[in-house]
């Protein structure tokens, strides 16, 4: 829900970083499946370039009109925006459910195999609907606390694994091998949902500069690279046996007799999921053309219910689950949502933008 209170865009960037930590922490053992530095670096490079490209349309709109994409699109054509907002509601539903599935899978495999994932998803969505009713400004403040906790969690996980770190690359590590390059690149491109979240929430921000998206992109992929590095050289081949690499990394951390800091990992990833789902639901609320806050909340609750229904479908039908977990499918959606549609809007309404 749009608000007249402005806040520094750095806080929004912080929220985006917190959202980005979630796919990093939930990466499976098949993420960047190549024990090869060249393939990993090329994939990360593609990820950085694509994410920066995706920021461009939203940054241009914000820089020129001081509005985010949703507000700009509503001002240009409300009828046209109805169709566009329907697409974006579908897009936000798909990415939210995709990451909820990953989170629930991690919860079941690492915490409680008999946990009812539907209850977990329902509770998360209920809490996030409430959070979405408060708006992006309070969420960005919450992100400050979550970010502080993430620093502690990452410090514990990385420093706790320093003693187990063995830089012993195998023979294929330094030999160029691009056999899995397609899936590796797709793995890195899933982060492109972040510019879309930015594009739907940046109206209330101030002091946006061009270096902010650049810095946040580099920090996100830097965190990813560091996590991959530790996963490769601490857990090694063992990580292939386990579904979630960073969860394993948290279990191998130790300081003297104190072992297994998976509780830090669980708390961190849970907080990130809440921030992510809330940010997406706030983006959904910005899809609505001007209406009362009660109706907006009702609309968000309905979308959250649709998300839950999709989650239940994915839980029951493996084909749906496979599609939602397919990174190439998510990349295509990211391309359409972050580049194609905003690009078309900028092209068609360029005079309005540059006036």
């Amino acid at each position, binding site marked *: 829900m749009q608000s007249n209170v402005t806040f520094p865009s750095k806080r929004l960037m912080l929220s985006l970083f917190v959202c980005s930590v979630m796919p990093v922490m939930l990466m499976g053992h098949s993420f960047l499946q190549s024990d090869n530095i060249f393939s990993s670096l090329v994939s990360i490079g593609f990820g950085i370039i694509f994410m920066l490209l995706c920021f461009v349309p939203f940054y241009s709109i914000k820089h020129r009109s001081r509005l985010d994409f949703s507000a700009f699109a509503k001002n240009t054509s409300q009828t046209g925006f109805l169709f566009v907002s329907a697409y974006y509601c579908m897009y936000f539903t798909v990415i939210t459910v995709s990451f909820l599935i990953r989170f629930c899978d991690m919860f079941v495999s690492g915490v409680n195999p008999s946990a009812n994932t539907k209850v977990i998803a329902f509770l998360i969505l209920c809490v996030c609907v409430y959070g979405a009713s408060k708006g992006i400004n309070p969420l960005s403040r919450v992100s400050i606390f979550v970010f502080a906790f993430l620093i502690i969690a990452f410090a514990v996980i990385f420093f706790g694994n320093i003693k187990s770190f063995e830089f012993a690359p195998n023979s294929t590590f330094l030999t160029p091998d691009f056999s899995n390059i397609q899936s590796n690149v797709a793995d890195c491109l899933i982060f492109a949902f972040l510019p879309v979240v930015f594009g739907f929430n940046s109206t209330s921000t101030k002091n946006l500069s061009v270096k902010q998206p650049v810095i946040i992109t580099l920090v996100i992929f830097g965190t990813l690279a560091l996590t991959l590095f530790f996963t490769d050289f601490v857990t090694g081949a*063992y990580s292939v046996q386990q579904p*979630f690499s960073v969860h394993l990394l948290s279990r191998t951390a130790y300081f003297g007799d104190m072992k297994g800091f998976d509780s830090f990992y669980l708390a961190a990833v849970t907080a990130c999921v809440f921030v992510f789902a809330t940010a997406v639901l706030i983006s959904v609320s910005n899809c609505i053309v001007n209406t009362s806050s009660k109706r907006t909340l009702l609309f968000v609750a309905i979308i959250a219910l649709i998300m839950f229904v999709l989650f239940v479908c994915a839980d029951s039908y493996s084909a749906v689950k496979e599609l939602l977990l397919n990174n190439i499918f998510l990349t295509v959606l990211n391309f359409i949502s972050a580049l194609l549609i905003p690009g078309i809007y900028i092209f068609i309404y360029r005079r309005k933008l540059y006036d």
Partner: protein
Amino acid sequence: MIKKLFLIPFFAIVLIFSGCSNSNRIDTSSLVQTITAEDKSGKTVYNFYLLENSEDVQSISVEAESLEKAVVSAKENYIPMLTLSKLELFLIDSELGEKTLETDIKYISRESMISPLTYTAFSDSKTLQLFSKDKDALKKVKEHILLLKNNAKGLSVTSLSIFNNFKGENNGYLSICYISSEKELKADIVKIVTQK
């Protein structure tokens, strides 16, 4: 304000009751701390020593071909809620050889509930029998393993490092601990050939 005052305790009650279930409560008597694999007259017997919470040592013994089958059998026949999340030590009789070690380590690596930092070592049969009599056997064996680890380079003491070294290119052999108690409890290094 009144809504929040009503909603917050309501959600708290829902969360508490949705989590409570007698069937899901983990009994401390189902937490396994140590597993030993013994060779008894050509048959492999797995002993599960439970978390110490009394004067007596509590354990269950299961005859099985592998740790995976032993866990299934133990859950079916003895303790349905058997949990390996607190497993600290896995000792294998040296008579069983590295084939058993490799199979069981592979099973441990697949189970996300089992800590990758579980100490794993070979041992003689006398040390394995110590666990059924001495409550402090786990503590003593761990101390010896740690002491050896601090003084020996390239020694694999955890299931994580043993698994990786079975897979890795490490000059074709893997060094692990061997615990013996002929005269007194002692830890040595034994090398296993891994190159095929």
